[in-house]
């Protein structure tokens, strides 16, 4: 239903791009003359268009501009300059010409800050300060550059702001924090030094929705200046789908309306934006091309030189596959903040209606970073270190509450906040007393300085220093520049001093060196050496391992009822058990027992020249009096072979070694005997687990490497005797 705005690209009312300038003034935008301007057109015309660049841009056609977006030889600065002369409809037209991979490439090129980062959400349903502090500390320790909280009950705002300020600075100094509440409270929190940034300034693409939101471009821009006047970093919020959801999309496409929002946001002088559909993401995902449209929104924002916090916070879909496929649009190119709120705590406690990705997904996120060698802003941290910072943060907020005379944070709360899973593990607090304390923060103007002093007095000197450093940020105001984040050493990294200068392979931000070492050292990754050693130990712990004795070079057998069992170079020697943990001695006994049960005689040899199961089996068959052999590798993979077959052919192949028991090997022996004695045999039933390969491929590789290392080139098979 395009007339309702339920269309990603090319809405029925999307205007033809146009721009008219007279006497240095914009007098028509996208087909609308000045007299018909709505408040948004007016604002963009007055503050958002560079008329000199506009004349230059008019000379270029849309495909040429689109081509420049993906041309590595056209620098970011040049593209940003060009964007200053383009109208919302023109911006929409140009990015619509790009396919998803081109958009990702352009986004990578146009990100403002050199390195991507990420933002965390920290909330809990009980608004428990110890848990807020512990979760904020974990988020900070994990490398999030910003942490956002909010409230269930608005009067809690000052306490929640203090809890994440203290927690974040315990986890890592320099993390910026915000508390998303109504603007008056938010500004007051900022003035008192309890938060350092705000991203609550919402913008909409049609005038009626803007007015329903009780704002105009002027009121929002004025508010942005007000925050800046108090030394607070600000980013605006917009996102496709909001106008349709609020019933006033006026038949425009999602992307065109977002282009109007972004042009307004830049005109207002914001350094950045949180966009990419945000809370309406599920609505846009219901549209054809919706995921591509959201990526186009992020791209447009970056092109307009705005810091981009690229959504991925609200739940996009019930489908993990669709959700993560969508994420890749921002994750691979890297945005200034890959999510505008990663739920560091379990989804249950996320009060933003968010939790697209939550605490339980962090290992997966880290693994995807490791898979792609891409930095999406989350760092692995060892479990004991997490426990340490969580407890330290819970104790720090306990001290602050004590010093300020707030309702005490108990030992039980500290313990539960440190080790608990979610707020259900925390005891209930006296909520009436807590909100009364929160009111005191405003009434008595309790400030960031007071928080630092309280920490200092209670032996949290390093946290006090970090909280004070956040206060100093407001004095220099360096972090008001585009895309600014703050390192643990207090250094500001912004687009001004640390810009993205990507210009082709080998340039720009690349995940390598120490950072790559860090991001691949995941707590859940096993060291291959340890894996190998563990398996070896397993084989050795129970009883002394059964030795096989090598007798002499094997000769060709002459008994027609003979079945040779040919084992690999490391079998029952360098290696002692199969991948399923069966000891080699037991496996050999099971096979030879099976052969005898089947009415044949067994002779055991070791093939030394090769580790491939087909050749082990075939070499065995060439020695066998009946021409039939069982070949088996140390990891347990087996084959029944016959001398007249090509080596890579076989009678039966048993490739699912992780599934086999001793009974399986006995059945293999029986069947081999059947082939040798000319009895009709039904193949051993096939077993199958298609995940075994994915699960055990590393272990398989290690075992096979050991087998291969035991090869003696050109050595003839030797006859074995079971110990």
């Amino acid at each position: 239903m395009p007339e309702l705005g339920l269309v990603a690209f090319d809405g029925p009312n999307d205007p033809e791009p146009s721009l008219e300038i007279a006497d240095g003034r914009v007098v028509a935008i996208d087909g609308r003359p000045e007299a018909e301007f709505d408040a948004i057109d007016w604002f963009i015309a007055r503050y958002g268009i560079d008329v000199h660049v506009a004349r230059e841009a008019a000379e270029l056609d849309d495909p040429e501009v689109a081509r420049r977006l993906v041309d590595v030889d056209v620098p970011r600065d040049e593209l940003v300059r060009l964007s200053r002369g383009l109208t919302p409809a023109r911006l929409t037209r140009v990015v619509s010409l790009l396919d998803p991979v081109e958009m990702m490439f352009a986004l990578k090129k146009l990100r403002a800050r050199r390195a991507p980062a990420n933002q965390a959400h920290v909330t809990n349903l009980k608004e428990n300060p110890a848990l807020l502090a512990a979760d904020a500390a974990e988020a900070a320790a994990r490398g999030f550059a910003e942490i956002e909280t909010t409230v269930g009950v608005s009067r809690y705002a000052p306490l929640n702001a203090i809890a994440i300020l203290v927690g974040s600075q315990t986890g890592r100094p320099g993390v910026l924090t915000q508390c998303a509440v109504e603007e008056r409270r938010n500004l007051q929190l900022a003035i008192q030094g309890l938060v350092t940034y705000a991203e609550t300034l919402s913008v909409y693409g049609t005038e009626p929705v803007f007015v329903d939101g009780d704002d105009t471009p002027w009121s929002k821009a004025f508010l942005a200046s007000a925050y800046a006047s108090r030394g607070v970093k600000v980013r605006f919020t917009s996102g496709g789908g909001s106008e349709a959801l609020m019933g006033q999309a006026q038949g425009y496409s999602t992307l065109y309306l977002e282009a109007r929002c972004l042009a307004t946001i830049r005109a207002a002088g914001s350094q950045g934006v949180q966009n990419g559909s945000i809370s309406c993401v599920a609505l846009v995902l219901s549209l054809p091309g919706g995921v591509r449209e959201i990526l186009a929104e992020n791209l447009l924002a970056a092109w307009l030189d705005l810091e981009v916090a690229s959504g991925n916070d609200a739940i996009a879909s019930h489908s993990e596959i669709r959700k993560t496929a969508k994420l890749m649009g921002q994750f691979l190119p890297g945005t200034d903040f890959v999510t505008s709120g990663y739920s560091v705590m379990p989804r249950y406690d996320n009060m933003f209606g968010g939790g697209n990705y939550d605490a339980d997904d962090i290992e997966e996120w880290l693994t995807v970073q490791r898979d792609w060698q891409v930095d999406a802003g989350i760092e692995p941290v060892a479990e004991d270190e997490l426990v340490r910072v969580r407890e330290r943060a819970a104790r720090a907020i306990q001290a602050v509450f004590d010093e300020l005379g707030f309702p005490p944070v108990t030992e039980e709360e500290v313990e539960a906040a440190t080790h608990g899973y979610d707020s259900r593990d925390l005891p209930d607090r006296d909520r009436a007393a807590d909100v009364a304390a929160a009111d005191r923060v405003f009434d008595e103007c309790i400030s960031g300085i007071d928080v630092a002093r309280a920490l200092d007095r209670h032996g949290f000197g390093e946290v006090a220093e970090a909280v004070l450093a956040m206060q100093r940020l407001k004095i220099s105001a360096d972090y008001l520049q585009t895309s600014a984040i703050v390192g643990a050493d207090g250094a500001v990294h912004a687009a001004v001093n640390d810009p993205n200068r990507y210009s082709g392979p080998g340039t720009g931000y690349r995940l390598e060196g120490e950072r790559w070492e860090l991001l691949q050292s995941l707590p859940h990754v096993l060291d291959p050496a340890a894996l190998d050693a563990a398996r070896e130990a397993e084989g050795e712990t129970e009883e002394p391992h059964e030795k096989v004795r090598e007798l002499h070079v094997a000769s060709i057998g002459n008994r027609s009822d003979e079945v040779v069992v040919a084992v690999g170079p490391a079998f029952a020697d360098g290696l002692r058990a199969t991948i399923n943990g069966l000891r080699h001695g037991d496996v050999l006994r099971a096979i030879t027992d099976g052969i005898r049960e089947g009415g044949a005689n067994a002779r055991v040899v070791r093939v030394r020249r090769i580790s491939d199961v087909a050749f082990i089996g075939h070499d065995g068959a060439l020695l066998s009096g009946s021409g039939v052999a069982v070949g088996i590798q140390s990891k347990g993979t087996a084959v029944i072979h016959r001398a007249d077959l090509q080596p890579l052919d076989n009678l039966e192949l048993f490739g699912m070694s992780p599934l086999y028991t001793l009974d399986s090997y006995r059945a293999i022996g029986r069947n081999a005997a059947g082939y040798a004695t000319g009895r009709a045999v039904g193949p051993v039933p096939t077993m199958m687990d298609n995940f075994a390969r994915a699960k055990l491929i590393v272990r398989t590789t290690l075992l096979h490497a050991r087998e291969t290392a035991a090869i003696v080139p050109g050595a003839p098979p030797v006859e074995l005797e079971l110990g």
Partner: protein
Amino acid sequence: MSFDPSSDYPLGSRRPDLVRTPAGVPLEGVTLSAVRQGLIDAGDVRATAETLRRQAAVALASGRAQLSANLERAAELTAIPPDTILEIYTALRPHRSTAAELEEWARRLEDEHGAPQAAAFVLEARAAYAERGLLAAVERARV
């Protein structure tokens, strides 16, 4: 040494000599020991108008004209109490003010607060609101 907006950013690390609190405390003077001695007042932990104008110059030098204008307005607002700022914000919300009320805010910004750019911004809003029917309905009743 004079200030160079294209090379003196970040001010906090490159030009700490230029950064002071409104009470004149240098940046490096804002320490824990100063807090212990009660030398730092919470209301004093903020940027001065001068610092914000330097940040506006940095933004302009890096090609960000609108961010620069925003920071210039912010510099003007540093001297205005928060309650007044929030009053002006509310006055700029849709259907809150008559044209005369917005003109009065512009006049006060210019005359009482030395904020000509913020004043011009409010006057532009007045013009746009009049065209778009975003002024307070009471104006019609009053006429």
